[in-house]
């Protein structure tokens, strides 16, 4: 045992030497049993829906051994490419289907194609022409562009920190000691700008014109900075170390939404030295990256903790046209969900027990089912941005 290993063992034990004031174990058992029963009901509904689809359209799901593309074709030799009209509670987003055991991750799309994704991606992002399947954030892991034609385009071997602009075409990344921006076009990732990368970190958000750079950690950002490729090479801006800004998302009009201590929501202009354009504090917004802005740029869906309260966080939606004057969410949902915008007015989410649709005019989630899909393993694919 080396000194580091010895220290590590002691440190880990020290962190948990004083247990927290835990909720009763009886409560844990009750909640687990209740949630499990909900899951069983939803699975039963999904199976029922699958049976209906089989009966109505002769659609089947097949997994060909050795095939990386798994079509979910109509069995009829003269297919009517509209297998099943989506019902009102069907998801209107692609879904990532998580693996059972050591299986593959696959994709369920509205076009009724099941696609086994290459490797086991850490993220899947929808782009204009297909999907990016990316490695663990900030780590150089195998990443691919799976085009709409299902062609797989490998991305550079050591690519990391890949972020997509809201237009779904422009991409920024780190690879081979360079920061680069480019475009997904014609089956190629076309490099448009490159500059030497800093020692650590990389792109965290991209408006299409400006790249927000940084290296996150548990205490905020070790550093953050901005690179505007059209203005030339990246040069480090002094005084950006130890910043507590967490960028949530780019906005369609080229700004960055961010959170600062005090749960202050801020709008930053990357073309003006990250100048604060707007700011409001006490919003209850949690500093979690990758919170999505609606396609029209009006709403922010975010993790939310009501001010002056302790306890569980929730998913909430803020109206970005009014929040700067009235820092109140438009709606707060009962739990915290992994969410993606289906359209401008609805979100699709999953809290680990099933898919739900979240509407702006109701705090009550609606159950969503996709034919033949176990909702407990389905996660909405994020739109870019």
């Amino acid at each position, binding site marked *: 045992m080396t000194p580091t290993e010895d220290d*590590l063992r002691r440190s*880990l034990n020290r962190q948990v030497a004083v247990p*927290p004031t835990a909720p009763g174990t009886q409560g844990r058992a009750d909640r*687990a*049993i209740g949630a*499990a029963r909900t899951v069983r009901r939803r699975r039963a509904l999904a199976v029922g829906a699958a049976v209906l689809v089989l009966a109505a359209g002769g659609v089947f799901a097949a997994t060909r051994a050795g095939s990386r593309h798994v079509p979910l074709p109509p069995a009829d030799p003269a297919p009517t490419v509209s297998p099943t009209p989506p019902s009102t509670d069907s998801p209107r987003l692609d879904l990532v289907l998580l693996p059972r055991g050591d299986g593959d991750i696959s994709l369920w799309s509205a076009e009724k194609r099941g696609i086994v994704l290459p490797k086991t991606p850490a993220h899947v992002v929808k782009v204009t022409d297909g999907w990016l399947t990316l490695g663990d954030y900030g780590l150089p892991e195998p990443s691919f562009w799976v085009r709409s034609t299902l062609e797989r385009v490998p991305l550079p071997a050591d690519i990391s920190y890949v972020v997509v602009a809201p237009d779904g075409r422009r991409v920024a990344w780190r690879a081979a000691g360079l920061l680069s921006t480019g475009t997904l076009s014609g089956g190629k990732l076309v490099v448009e700008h490159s500059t030497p990368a800093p020692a650590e970190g990389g792109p965290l958000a991209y408006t299409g014109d400006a790249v927000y750079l940084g290296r996150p950690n548990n205490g*905020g950002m070790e550093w953050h900075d901005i690179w505007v490729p059209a203005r030339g090479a990246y040069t480090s801006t002094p005084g950006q170390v130890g910043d507590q800004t967490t960028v949530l998302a780019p906005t369609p009009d080229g700004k960055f939404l961010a959170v600062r201590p005090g749960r202050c929501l801020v709008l930053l202009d990357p073309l003006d030295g990250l100048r604060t354009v707007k700011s409001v504090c006490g919003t209850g917004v949690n500093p979690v990256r990758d919170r999505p802005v609606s396609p029209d740029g009006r709403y922010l869906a975010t993790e939310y903790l009501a001010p002056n309260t302790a306890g569980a966080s929730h998913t909430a939606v803020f109206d970005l046209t009014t929040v700067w004057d009235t820092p109140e969410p438009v709606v707060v949902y009962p739990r915290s969900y992994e969410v993606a915008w289906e359209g401008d007015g609805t979100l699709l989410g999953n809290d*680990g027990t099933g898919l739900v649709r979240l509407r702006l005019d109701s705090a009550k989630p609606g159950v969503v089912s996709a034919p033949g899909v176990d909702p407990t393993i389905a996660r909405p694919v994020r739109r870019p941005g």
Partner: protein
Amino acid sequence: MNEQDFRDFVAARSPALLRTAYLLVGDWHRAEDLLQTALTKTYLAWRRLGEIGAVEAYTRKVLVNTATSWWRRRWTGERPTADLPDTPGPDGLDALVVRDELWQQVRRLPARQRAVLVLRYYEDQSEAETARLLGVSVGTVKSQASRALGTLRVQLGTRIPEGMDR
């Protein structure tokens, strides 16, 4: 095994599982959330798991895999938690642990590397058992542990403040 057996299992083992969950995610609230998810999945599989030893192994595997999986990434070290003071820690414990530089460096590791360290050096699992729990090869466990320890050595070599109690 029936529902009461499950309740007994939760009563007996959830405190220990919660501690492991905390080391995996670095935050008591999220640890509780993670444990709750693992217990739900355990109850779903309850009838086919058989004897209690298999149950605990299953729960631990779910715990680790959920913590290290991308779809629960928001529980992992990649999550900036700039102003956690709004979420009070239990009994002032967070104020104590914040002084532990080694632990701060462990929290910065990628989720899978951190999980390997927690399983190997907190739970005292063998390399083979760690590999089984994470669903990876023994070679991957070795390389992840080596990389993580190397990172810690480098970081601690340059960042340990004077007088730090390690």
